[in-house]
């Protein structure tokens, strides 16, 4: 009984101790994402890519960072990277309609580039 309670208390303590770490990672990543949005709105897409890549590294579970990164890759014509980033964003947040809509629009362009091509 004492052992069970001790284990429970240990798990709770561990969760409480790690929560600020996750919160820090998310808030740092969020700061990078916000900065990325700010510079992208001024047309500085490469700086945006740098910021969103950093955000994705800081918090690999942050769907918005991957969504924004995908848009920037798309703008830069790096379509393979864009597809991977969109897929990661959707994997992290499958019910996000905005990410899904971005991805559908991207796919429309991506499909167009390969449409009509005859098989050799």
């Amino acid at each position: 009984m004492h052992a069970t309670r001790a284990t429970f208390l240990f798990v709770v303590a561990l969760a409480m101790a790690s929560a600020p770490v996750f919160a820090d990672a998310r808030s740092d990543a969020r700061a990078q994402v916000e900065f990325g949005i700010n510079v992208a709105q001024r047309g500085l897409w490469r700086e945006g890519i740098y910021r969103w890549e950093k955000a994705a590294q800081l918090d690999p579970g942050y769907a918005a960072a991957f969504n924004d990164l995908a848009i920037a890759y798309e703008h830069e014509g790096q379509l393979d990277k864009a597809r991977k980033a969109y897929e990661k964003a959707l994997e992290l947040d499958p019910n996000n309609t905005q990410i899904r809509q971005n991805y559908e629009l991207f796919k429309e362009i991506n499909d167009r580039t390969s449409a009509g091509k005859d098989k050799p």
Partner: protein
Amino acid sequence: MTGPAPAKTSRRLALGFGAAALALAVVACGTDFYEIPIETPIQPKLDVSAFQRVLVAGFVAGGSEDVDTNQETVRLLRSQLRTKSQLKVIDADIMPLIDIAQDQNKAANGEETNTAANGSSGSSATAAPNGNSNGTDHGTAQQTVPLPKSIKEEKDLEPYERLFANTAYWKKIGEEYQNPLIVTGTVLFVPHSRSGMVTRDQETIDAYGRHRVIPVRTYMERKGFILRPKFVFIDGRSGATMYSESHREEILYNAQQNTPALSSYFELMDRIVPDFLSALSSQKIRGTRVLLK
């Protein structure tokens, strides 16, 4: 009589506070998404850096007799390439490819007949229709398949495909024009009609004078055209096909509407031309996306 009034007032107050709190929360948190315009650059499907000039030679064309599809396609593509690509467009007479293919076929048949009469199986049996014995990519048996004189449907175009595989012929054309990129292919533009149930929006005005749009399914007879171009890009230095792509677009109008064939042709080509150009030059596609916080 006055009993419920304070209850209503307090509910309104509560709703008002709720809305204000929500507005404050939105202001405090800021918006979480930003719509942003983007331009996606599309790399050309073909590396044309080795070419400075392009020759839109001509097309094996058929279908509607109301439009000279060979001439119209060549003129349209040349004008598009002049304004939207880096390549210099060669102004040359439009090649009557159907006649050229027929001549090549006759020559191949003649050679085959001579070979059979002489009882030999020498090099003349496999000679190219233009007399170049090095360039044929296909056997004599294939050469002798008859070519339909008028092209009415898709299957009539198939025997003409071997014209594009005749590397010796295209190499000779390439030499004539200083090794350009050669654009050729087939174009089929045929009338088409379809009848059946279609859904269309019907605007009505209700008893209160309000406009309403209701989807209504009705039986309709429609007529229009199908455009099926196949673009073949040939390296003028070697005569070999670099790349080819096929498209299909159709348009249907109400059967009572009388739309000229040429207008329909241009309407359909308008949809295809961006894809054609994207084979040769980089394009930018404008759109909007949503950045998230």
